[in-house]
């Protein structure tokens, strides 16, 4: 959004976009952040702020795009036409979210091709959660309820992030995510009213997705490398642990209504804290998946690269078609 290609006339040494690091610009930038203001695409920003945003927004975009794969897997096997239409709409939304975010990242002076190249060559990361397989139809419900639920918790504070184009993309995304979470929960409610086998299927899916979902909030605050600086810049408004706690508190109540339990014997209400306590997270598993050794890492990336390469001839043909049309028009004129 708000293109990087806008033509700004009359650029000269003292008038063009400020590219250099300069204490006066820095002070102006800090003041804007402190006042809760927004930074827009062409405003001066510290190089480290720009780089952090490119990394974060593009990882976020990649996650949306790769996130289409585990669910797309079930479109042809949805149990009813209604569920199929819902799932199609949801997967289309994920694609849309990826596109809003790529456009936001591009305002920071990186091209779409560079961003995609980083994903396809494995240089850029995407959310590890999508490296887990979706084994049964109940997984589709649990992904909506827990995975999208965790994503919403993470994303709502980003609607007020200091970088305008990112914040605006997030507002749009959050509005749509709510549908994703609710349709997932609705799917599970329906299954819980079904046969004992269906109820078991839901519990099994919850058992497999619970821990990965609460890992989505990232490392504990004390181990989180980027958190301090990102908070200073107004990119991150609430800490990983606070968001995780908020998610656990909200979700445990929803599990009761659904009639499932979480696979954590240490999960219990702590009257004193006014929150649920929960067991220790297996961070070895988390880092193992982040570093490429999850169940689905290889397949996900291979599917993504194949889709991109198989579509290359279409992209090239469309460009060539337009080039010829423009040439014909030029000749006729």
């Amino acid at each position: 959004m708000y293109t990087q290609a806008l033509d700004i006339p009359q650029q000269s040494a003292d008038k063009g976009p400020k590219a250099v690091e300069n204490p006066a610009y820095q002070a102006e930038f800090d003041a804007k952040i402190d006042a809760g203001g927004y930074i827009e695409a062409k405003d001066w920003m510290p190089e480290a702020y720009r780089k952090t945003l490119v990394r974060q927004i593009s990882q976020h975009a990649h996650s949306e795009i790769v996130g289409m794969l585990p669910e797309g897997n079930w479109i042809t096997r949805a149990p009813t036409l209604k569920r199929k239409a819902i799932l199609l709409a949801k997967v289309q939304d994920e694609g849309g979210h990826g596109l809003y975010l790529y456009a936001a990242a591009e305002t920071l002076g990186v091209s779409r091709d560079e961003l995609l190249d980083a994903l396809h060559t494995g240089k850029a990361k995407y959310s590890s959660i999508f490296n887990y397989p979706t084994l049964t139809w109940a997984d589709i419900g649990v992904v909506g309820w827990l995975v999208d639920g965790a994503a919403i918790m993470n994303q709502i504070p980003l609607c007020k992030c200091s970088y305008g184009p990112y914040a605006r993309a997030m507002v749009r995304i959050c509005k749509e995510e709510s549908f994703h979470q609710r349709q997932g929960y609705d799917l599970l409610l329906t299954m819980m009213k079904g046969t004992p086998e269906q109820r078991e299927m839901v519990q099994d899916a919850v058992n497999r997705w619970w821990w990965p979902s609460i890992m989505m909030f990232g490392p504990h605050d004390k181990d989180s490398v980027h958190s301090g600086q990102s908070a200073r810049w107004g990119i991150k408004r609430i800490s990983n642990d606070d968001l995780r706690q908020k998610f656990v508190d909200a979700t445990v109540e929803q599990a009761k209504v659904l009639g499932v339990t979480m696979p954590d014997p240490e999960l219990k209400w702590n009257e004193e804290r006014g929150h649920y306590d929960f067991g220790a997270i297996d961070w070895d598993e988390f880092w193992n998946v982040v570093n490429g050794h999850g169940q689905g890492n290889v397949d996900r990336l291979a599917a993504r690269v194949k889709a991109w390469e198989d579509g290359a001839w279409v992209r090239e043909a469309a460009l060539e078609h337009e080039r010829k049309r423009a040439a014909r028009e030029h000749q006729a004129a």
Partner: protein
Amino acid sequence: MERKEWPLWEVFVRSRNGLDHKHCGSVHAPDAKLALQVARDVYTRRQEGVSIWVVEASNIVASDPDAKPELFDPAEDKIYRHPTFYQLPDEVNHM
């Protein structure tokens, strides 16, 4: 890397008749016709619009953010351009 990227287009959507078109994002597309189609798929999946404009981004000319003071500050001290500047007698102050 050889640049084979589709050009960038800015998307403006009128949410309903009676309102202005408003910028809502960008898309990549090879030509105007496809830019409209892509914009429709990306930005109006929930009846957000009744009309779409797409403009190739390279055709937009923008003001320089560093020129903000000289462009916009001069309006700051012209408070007499606002109706509230004029304090009229109570009997007619709803004017």
